[in-house]
């Protein structure tokens, strides 16, 4: 069965520290991969996406993600976290077609001063 795993439910980092959020997928073939961010009380906003090509993807708000086929991973990173990055982050995989989108359960990021 297709699945997306975000092993960290909750992460706390200090402002200015680096961040890595983990995402692993299990699909028959490499899916399209996305990271979305959800600020409190808001809908989801796309941070970045990977379809093919360069395995290091740059996104908005200074985020990047690296696709590693051998590890079935698509981890999200940011070199220096800002207080405004506190939100919930979702890794999403899509193998194409309407019913083949799978959301991870999300990682809630807390940023402390």
């Amino acid at each position, binding site marked *: 069965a297709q699945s997306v795993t975000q092993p960290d439910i909750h992460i706390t980092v200090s402002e200015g520290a680096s961040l890595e959020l983990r995402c692993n997928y299990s699909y028959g073939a490499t899916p399209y991969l996305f990271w979305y961010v959800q600020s409190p009380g808001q*809908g989801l906003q796309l941070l970045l996406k990977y379809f093919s090509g360069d395995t290091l993807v740059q996104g908005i708000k200074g985020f990047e993600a690296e696709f590693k086929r051998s590890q079935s991973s698509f981890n999200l990173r940011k070199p220096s976290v800002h207080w405004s990055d506190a939100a919930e982050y979702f890794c999403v995989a899509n193998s194409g077609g309407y019913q083949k989108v799978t*959301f991870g359960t999300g990682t809630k990021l807390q940023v402390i001063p």
Partner: protein
Amino acid sequence: DVKVTQSSRYLVKRTGEKVFLECVQDMDHENMFWYRQDPGLGLRLIYFSYDVKMKEKGDIPEGYSVSREKKERFSLILESASTNQTSMYLCASTLGRNQETQYFGPGTRLLVL
């Protein structure tokens, strides 16, 4: 910019009431989706539509129906609301058949008493 709007941000209803949640997108997108979001479960697909008057069941359609009479509008209907339908409801749209990036509305937080 794509804009997806939802008719209400917060809604309180009583058990047994009929509830309508409306979603409108302004970018002529083909596909529209309704998800519910619950803590620890991520987003789960209720229904989606790939064309006017077309609908497909998602993973958790029980207790819900949908209507898409116009391309820009996708309605979610709770025929007889129950307390276990208390949740955050998110509408999303995508341009074409391969889904790619989903654009989300701000969400409707529904409380059923």
